[in-house]
């Protein structure tokens, strides 16, 4: 939305499908422009909040992934040393020959 002032009057226009079209004038135009600005600010804040949340979550996931890998590796090491091996997603005790 775009507010234009000409010869003491206020006009509100918007871009629709590549064309500029008239929306309103006077007090109504100012009220609509204000509502649009507030709405845009709210969207910008929501977008920024989402970006921050996603970045924080990615950092947290990186730490948790390291912990998961370390724990998985330690578990595999312990199981293997205890004589187990994995066969079709099942841990089985290695047959003693």
């Amino acid at each position: 939305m775009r507010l234009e002032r000409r010869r003491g009057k206020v006009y509100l226009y918007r871009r629709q499908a590549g064309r500029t079209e008239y929306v309103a004038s006077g007090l109504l135009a100012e009220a609509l422009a204000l509502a649009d600005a507030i709405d845009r600010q709210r969207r910008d804040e929501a977008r920024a909040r989402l970006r921050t949340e996603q970045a924080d979550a990615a950092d947290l996931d990186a730490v948790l992934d390291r912990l998961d890998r370390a724990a998985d590796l330690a578990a595999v090491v312990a199981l293997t040393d205890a004589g187990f091996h994995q066969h079709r997603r099942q841990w089985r005790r290695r047959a003693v020959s």
Partner: protein
Amino acid sequence: VTSPSRSVFDLSREDLDALLRRARAGDPSTLDQVRELLALSPETIELAGGNLAAEAEAAVVASIAGEDLLQAEAIRQRLAEMRQELEDGRGGLLDRLLVQRLVLAWAVAQDAEVRAARLPEPSCPVSVRAADYHRRRLDSATRRLTQAARALSLIRSKLRPAGQPNRKAGRPGNVPSNA
């Protein structure tokens, strides 16, 4: 894994994944490396795993509570209670590491559930996109929690000394695993 003398936490993800895949498949050529790692494991788990677990807990608490010290302390106490409940005093370092992983995964899943439950504002496309993101995040947190629970259950069912039945894991037979 190129050298067992390196900390496991210095290994690249590809190296670790490759080692896990081969060891899981019972590749006997990994046994020496696995044994060498095991020889290092008490220290490795205690130093690297212990520090990593503490780092992860700090990150989880900060992520949920932000700057709210009261909430942060409440979460820490709840995590400590859960750890105490899950640790039965018979487990070693590995058991404690797996318990800590499970407890943190639980906290993250709880947080993800709360965030996903927030209703989006239908008039705000960003809010709708955020809701979608939080739903996917909840799925991922739930998967992490499930894997953590399975790994603990697996280790307890397989590595409990004889005569110590594991109440939580059920039968001591073969257990499907993601570990």
